[in-house]
């Protein structure tokens, strides 16, 4: 029997990520049929900042999803023999970036450099020189004078290619949707406030949002074009201590960041919201128990608690090597456990906030009106309390998202974070600690991690802001 060229492998976190995506898609389809929800999302869709942010987020999610399609490549064997698969697990993203992954240098090199960052004793020389890179600028040969011209040319070419791809897409969309797109790009500077008819204004707002999506896409395309053109011959963000391309590390970190952010939130959110509302609304001994619980939890220093839990979990994983066929599976289990532990220890702040806010809401007259109708406790919590807390939940979520990515960095520093084989922003920042102490300083790992995280968190923040505004009936007219 001939085996496949690859053996697909579904890690637990992949499965969770895909289930989450499926649930979101299903919810979106369901929301389309609810008038109120559709109207609220339509308001989000008309907000140009939100749509730009959503576009950027979508790019991040796309990278994360590509990185979640795991497989084991087939090893070369005799024809006819049973197919053998590598122990190493790759993802679709790895396949796309195989060039970046394989072109590793000996050690540090600055972004777009042609030589290593530090002097080394060369073989047939007494002097210590900067050795040439194996891959960075290799196409230039000995003629280094053309280095800057080459970079400029690649910049132009990449930007041009990005623009070309965008124009093709724009033309296709325009053919499909007709004239609507014609005005789209002009709206940015046009004054919509003077539009007398409301319909015209609404249309303008919608096409302004579409315009901002297109402009964001243009920026994304041109940036991608430039990066691709440069990455072909250079290390765009330089290389790290063992010569790995930092751009590759950054792209791989996205999935880890997204997973830690979303899964932890998924664990933490129901606990925090449920316990917070219960404590605030029911009061009495329930309130006491929940308060004691979270006061106790938050009185133990967070890092110590997490470290203890992670170490326990590590012992369990280490004593059961038979559970995991590959190192990737082991690293994945560790990542999931970390999310679980982070979630179970980080709900206290939000729960306290929920409790306080519920105490306030519970005394409001609409809650008493519901009580006068004999509406049940849980129905009141669900209909009257929870919707009026959603804005806090949403803000806390986005704030926590960035906080969690950082928490992962701190934990990696203590040595209890993700598996050493897992690439994450945390591990990148952690190694940057040593690099920043070098003279001359190695700054690019940190800058790369920082700029990717900045884009991700900013996009998430802006998008969450727009959602909160759109779902608050008071702010819409």
């Amino acid at each position, binding site marked *: 029997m001939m085996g496949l060229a690859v053996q697909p492998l579904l890690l637990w976190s992949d499965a969770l990520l895909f289930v989450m995506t499926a649930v979101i898609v299903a919810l979106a389809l369901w929301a389309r049929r609810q008038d109120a929800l559709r109207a609220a999302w339509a308001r989000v869709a008309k907000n140009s900042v939100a749509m730009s942010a959503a576009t950027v987020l979508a790019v991040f999610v796309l990278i994360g999803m590509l990185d979640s399609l795991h497989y084991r490549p087939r090893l070369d064997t005799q024809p006819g023999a049973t197919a053998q698969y590598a122990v190493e697990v790759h993802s679709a993203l790895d396949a796309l970036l195989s060039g970046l992954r394989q072109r590793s240098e000996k050690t540090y090199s600055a972004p777009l450099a042609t030589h290593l960052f530090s002097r080394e004793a060369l073989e047939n020389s007494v002097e210590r020189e900067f050795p040439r890179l194996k891959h960075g600028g290799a196409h230039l040969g000995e003629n280094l004078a053309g280095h800057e011209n080459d970079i400029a040319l690649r910049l132009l070419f990449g930007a041009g290619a990005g623009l070309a791809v965008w124009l093709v897409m724009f033309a296709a969309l325009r053919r499909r949707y007709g004239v609507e797109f014609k005005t789209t790009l002009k709206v940015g500077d046009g004054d919509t406030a003077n539009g007398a008819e409301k319909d015209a204004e609404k249309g303008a707002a919608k096409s302004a949002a579409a315009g901002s999506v297109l402009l964001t896409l243009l920026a994304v395309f041109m940036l991608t074009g430039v990066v691709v053109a440069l990455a072909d011959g250079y290390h765009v963000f330089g290389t790290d201590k063992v010569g790995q391309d930092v751009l590759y590390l950054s792209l791989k970190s996205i999935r880890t960041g997204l997973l830690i952010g979303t899964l932890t939130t998924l664990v933490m959110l129901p606990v925090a919201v449920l316990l917070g509302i219960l404590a605030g609304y029911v009061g009495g001994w329930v309130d006491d128990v929940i308060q004691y619980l979270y006061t106790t939890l938050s009185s133990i220093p967070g890092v110590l608690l997490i470290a203890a839990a992670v170490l326990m979990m590590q012992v369990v994983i280490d004593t059961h090597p038979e559970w995991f066929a590959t190192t990737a599976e082991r690293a994945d289990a560790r990542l999931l456990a970390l999310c679980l532990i982070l979630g179970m220890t980080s709900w206290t702040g939000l729960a306290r906030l929920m409790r306080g806010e519920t105490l306030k809401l519970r005394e*409001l007259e609409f809650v*008493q009106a519901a009580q*006068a*109708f*004999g509406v049940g406790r849980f129905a009141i919590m669900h209909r*009257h309390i929870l919707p009026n807390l959603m804005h806090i939940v949403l803000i806390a979520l986005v704030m926590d998202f960035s906080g969690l990515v950082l928490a992962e960095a701190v934990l990696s520093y203590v040595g209890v974070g993700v598996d050493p084989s897992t690439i994450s922003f945390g591990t990148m920042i952690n190694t940057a600690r040593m690099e920043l102490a070098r003279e001359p300083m190695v700054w690019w790992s940190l800058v790369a991690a920082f700029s990717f995280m900045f884009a991700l968190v900013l996009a998430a923040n802006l998008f969450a802001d727009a959602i909160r505004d759109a779902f608050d*009936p*008071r702010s819409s007219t």
Partner: protein
Amino acid sequence: MILSVQDLAIHIGAARPVDGISLTIEAGECYALLGESGCGKSMTALGLMRLLPAGARVISGAVNFEGTDLLGLPESGMREVRGGGIGMIFQEPATSLNPVLTVGRQIVEALQLHAGLQGTAARKRAGELLDQVGIPDPLRRLDEYPFQLSGGLRQRVMIAIALAGEPRLLIADEPTTALDVTIQAQVLDLLDELRRTRGMALLLITHDLGVVARMADRIGVMYAGQLVEEAPRAQFFSQPAHPYSVRLFAALPDTKRRGANLATIPGSVPAADARHSGCRFVYRCSEAMAECHKAPPPWREVDACQRVRCFLAAAAPPVAVKVGAGETATQSRQAPLLEVTDLQMHFPIRRGILQRAVGAVRAVDGLSLQLMAGRTLALVGESGCGKTTAGKAMLQLLRPTAGSVMLDGVELTTRSAGQLQPLRAKMQMVFQDPFASLNPRLRIGEIIAEGMQALKVGDGETGAPIAKLLEQVGLRADMVNRYPHEFSGGQRQRIAIARALAVSPRLLICDEPTSALDVSVQAQILNLLSELQRELELAYLFITHNIAVVDYLAHDVAVMYLGRVVERGTADEVLHQARHPYTQALLAAVPHIDGLDKATVKLSGDMPSPANPPSGCHFHPRCPLADEACRVSYPDEIRFGATHAVRCIKV
């Protein structure tokens, strides 16, 4: 002339809350700025002080205070004027004092700034000021914190701070709206006396015609950012010229209009960002003519001191008052719908580690009353006397400590939550604040349907009944999908009434349902309530402190003081032949629009704490008739006729 304002216009973005105001105030004069909420009264005052909120700008106009152009002053010069030349006091005494500083520090701060006094001299002066505003034992009060003072005392402290700079003009923005009538009378007396002794001018901002009648020399009526009428008090109250003023008077509930519908002003004040081509009042005016739509009416002199912005030669009488069915409910001989006996609601005060109860706040302490089907019983009293708590305890929203509540012959207090469920449809509540009583996240339809679903009223189909209910309370059926924030205060209160009516109750407990509303809107809601009573034979338990509303609406009245009913009887008996000194004082404190102060009994001080009620008759520390006998035991009920009963040994 101490202050003259020329064509002041204040814009916030597209909104124009103040749109061309001109007025003058003489030294020592009390000028009242009268109008409904949203008319730009407070914004005008803030504009004069240059304390406008962020985003608001003075677009045009001139403000001249004692010869200085205030709008042209640099900020440092303006700081001298604020507090020094013009003092200001605000509506809410609870939030205008800093809670973490002693009263003395806050007064001394103003004295340091404006009088240059320091140390003991400043403290001595602060004591004098507190004495002037009528605070007993002023030197001790200087070291107290605002939370240790009652609302009336806090407002006095605010006035003392405003007086520290010896201002020539005092701006009082709704100074008594948050206070009880008895306290309001005290504060108004104080303001009036200060004005006379110091020759200080007073710009009084209010929506209350009674306060205006009590205080003002001249009156400016504000509507949608403009003055529409200016007149001296006597003329304003005897012959108001603008249709809006006329209707404000007609909308006031009082005893003469019992059984009749109140004249209402349809609609509400136009939004501040609306553009006007003609008269601003035209959409609510029944005498609007074609020319009213075309151009804004110019000022017209009615006589030397009264002027009005209206095309009409003479103000028409108010819209013909529809006369209703008159006194609706007859004294029925049937068993009462609601019978409350000895109701007690005590909240334990817990202290110490073990949270042992060391005492109790006796919010309601032995309340008894009866309410027949189809009638209105008003529960009257100052804030803090336990009215609202009593209402909630009757509904079993709070479980009473003791006593019995019988609804239609069924005892409620002993029933479990599950057993109460079927009875909930019979009794419902309308709350005070229409902005807090509707969940902002639910649509109107969902809000009204909630009770029907929870109590399984009807056959599960809610669409048609909701449409009918909305029309019944004067809203359109197509409003079901809107959110509460899209409605004005009056409309929200209608929604709250529709929600209560959805389960076809027989008893409606109305907790101050109109206290958050303007006079014209209050009239709409009162009319609606009396129509519904005629139609549906509803019984109302009307909890209020507004005597005029009681006089208009109630069949029976019970006066509450410190958790107990001190006088009860029919409306006529209690309000016109009051026997209890507290009832008499309460009635005397209500300012009347005829401006005559017929106060015979003036109350001093505040209500004592319900955690520590005085011995004997609770009222004796404030009662002018009290003697030793009153301190001994709580008086028994003395009956006058079949319905009238009083708890006082001095009657």
